[in-house]
């Protein structure tokens, strides 16, 4: 019962995060939204493990947390040190 409530709250938050990832005006909004979506995926995998009575899913959650961290760092460094995503003149913010 409580696990289902937590799963529903996580799914609602995932919808809000995907809205920001699609709408977000700058590329940094999208990176932030994807990072948060990864954290919510970790929570959802853990809660689903308890909901289904199979906590073995926690291994997947652990690996997903690691990959999410490395991916976010890599993408933000890529956007910072390449010209993709830089302003191309004027004060318009860069976007992919």
């Amino acid at each position, binding site marked *: 019962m409580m696990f289902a409530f937590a799963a529903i709250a996580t799914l609602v938050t995932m919808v809000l*995060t995907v809205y920001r990832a699609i709408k977000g005006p700058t590329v940094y909004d999208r990176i932030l939204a994807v990072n948060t979506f990864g954290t919510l995926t970790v929570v959802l995998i853990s809660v689903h493990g*308890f909901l289904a009575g199979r906590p073995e899913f926690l291994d997947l959650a652990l690996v997903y947390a690691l990959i999410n961290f490395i991916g976010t760092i890599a993408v*933000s460094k890529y956007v910072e040190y390449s010209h993709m*995503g830089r302003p191309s003149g004027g004060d318009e913010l860069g976007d992919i």
Partner: protein
Amino acid sequence: MEILLDAVSWALILVGSVFLVIGGVGMVRLPDVFARMHGAGIIDTMGACAVLIGLMVQAGLTIVTIKLLLIVVFIMFTSPTTTHALARAALGGGARPQVADSPADADAGEGDSPSKT
């Protein structure tokens, strides 16, 4: 004792779920990227960690608790690190925090335009 542990874990899961939704609403409604990092921080620390600690209380002393503890510690380390790297990248890429000069500006701040200060 059983009922007490159940109550504690349900309270933690309930509080965590509420904070997850609050952080999600913050990510949609806050005006610029630096403010939205605040909503993401609420989701990462208060929301996810409260839900996972509630699951730890539910699981008892097993290997499941160790794995959940690893996930919580990892989120606690990586969330500030990613936010810091992303804020540096955003500053280097030309995004500036939206600064309200007067309360009227703060009220008129619409969420979709990038800050031009």
